């Protein structure tokens, strides 16, 4: 594998990691909010905590897709 093939995924990796981390924390908050399902506390924890973290995580993932640079085309001159 050449360096250029590896560079695009490597650059997007930190975004993916942060995105996944936000989603993990968000989903954990969602899981905890189920413990207070019959009160506004659970609803608020879900709406403001879990919702915003998971949406931020998904947003970061989508951003990483847009930001991911395309691998440059392999020049034929290198084979001459």
């Amino acid at each position, binding site marked *: 594998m050449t360096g250029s093939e590896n560079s695009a*995924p*490597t650059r*997007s*990796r930190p975004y*993916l*990691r942060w*995105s*996944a*981390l936000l*989603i*993990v924390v*968000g*989903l*954990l908050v*969602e*899981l905890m*909010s*189920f413990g*207070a*399902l*019959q*009160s*506004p*506390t*659970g*609803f*608020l924890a*879900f*709406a403001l905590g*879990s*919702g915003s973290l*998971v*949406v931020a*995580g*998904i947003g970061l*993932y*989508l951003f990483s897709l847009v930001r991911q640079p395309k691998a440059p085309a392999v020049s034929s001159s290198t084979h001459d």
Partner: protein
Amino acid sequence: MDATLGWYLLVTLVLVGIGFAMLVVAQPRLVTRSGGQAMAFLALFVLPVTCLWAGVSTHLESSKSTEFCLSCHVMEPYGESLAIDDEFALPASHFQNRRIDRDRACYTCHTQYTMYGDLAAKINGVRHLLVYYRGATPETIELYEPYHNRECLHCHAGARLYEEMHAEDRAEIESNELSCLECHDMSHEVASLADYDRWPTAEPTRTEGP
């Protein structure tokens, strides 16, 4: 679907979502290999979106319960009013005679309220929570708009007693020109709860909450 099964499925779904996302945190290399893009899409988009949707649905469904509404201190008198011993008190007579589902008592008659109405109503619902937690609850709680006959007609329209007794003024009632509460004017009566006896059998109780 059985509620318990649904509950287990929901928790399993969220746990699977957490598991996949944790895999990406621990091994980001996995999603950069061939086929990894699909896994990243599953772990960072499909599963979280599904979990969020399931969470919204579950929380909205549970917020329709009487227990949820009465878990706020400010709602306690309204819950108590369901137990007053007076056949002319609308909420109490509906609740005690099972004219409404007791587990959905508030939601049945306030269907367009807070989370259940349009976008503005949903925003108001969240605002109510914030106002409650900031401790800025007003002394007197009022509806945003006069009580709409639509809420009564959900059940009463087409009912024999309603059709026979209101034959003359049905048009006015159904167009909301004449409010049902003009004549059936005894509602929650929270200001004078102390004046009434209680029906002891099924007094709604405040179970948990802030």
